[in-house]
């Protein structure tokens, strides 16, 4: 799909990079004039996706996580979080609320939150090869006329 701006960041699956990924996403989305609520929704969804890559994709090692941010037509923000980790055996099961393969410190609500806070969510996963989570959200924004895309 056509995009007019894009940022790609790759970082190791260290938990301190969860806050980094949220900040980078918020900084990229700022040019789209989002409301505070929209920005919070996007930051929450990114936090969930990146945490999943850190906790589940690489349970015993540190591996690469790629965060791609794109501004699409109609002020749609696309966020893609890709890992090369262990993959998900059963994506439908993983999408069930409260399902988790994590420990007591995980709630199993990450995917449910991504689904409800974003407009679209797709998950492609191959066991042993990795997982790509793609999310989209239309930012209706504050309607600032000065925040039109620049050519």
């Amino acid at each position, binding site marked *: 799909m056509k995009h007019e701006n894009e940022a790609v960041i790759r970082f190791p699956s260290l938990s*301190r990079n969860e806050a980094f990924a949220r900040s980078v996403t918020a900084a990229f989305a700022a040019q789209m004039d989002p409301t505070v609520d929209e920005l919070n929704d996007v*930051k929450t969804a990114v*936090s*969930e996706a990146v945490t999943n890559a850190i906790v589940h994709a690489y349970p015993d090692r540190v591996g690469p996580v790629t965060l791609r941010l794109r501004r699409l037509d109609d002020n749609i923000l696309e966020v893609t979080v890709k890992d090369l980790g262990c993959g998900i055996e059963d994506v439908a099961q993983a999408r069930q609320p409260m399902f988790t393969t994590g420990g007591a410190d*995980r709630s199993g609500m990450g995917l*449910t*939150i991504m689904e409800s*806070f974003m407009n679209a969510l797709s998950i492609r996963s191959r066991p042993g090869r990795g997982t790509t989570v793609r999310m989209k959200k239309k930012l209706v924004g504050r309607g600032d006329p000065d925040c039109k895309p620049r050519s």
Partner: protein
Amino acid sequence: MTFTSFLQDKRLTILLSGEIDHHSARETMEAVSEKIRVYLPRYCELDFGAVTFMDSSGIALVIHTLRAMNELGGKLRLTSVPPQPRKVLLASGIQNLVALSQERSPA
């Protein structure tokens, strides 16, 4: 994530602050459990007033605290919950298990 806590009349108040994510949640969870174990409160209040961001790790923190209080036969309340953590908590349906309010609880 840092927190302050105080105890009065078997009521333990824990003031959470900063960002609650997977990176910070485990340490907070252990610290909250330790306070409950030491003080054996009848009521526990998690005050979210100074929480600037929370993801689903915060839900796990609440469930963990709720279990600890249930074991003691005590009650848990979530107070001063700002809009962003509130939206995450409501998405989990946790309001069916624990009282959640935007206001600070009356002294």
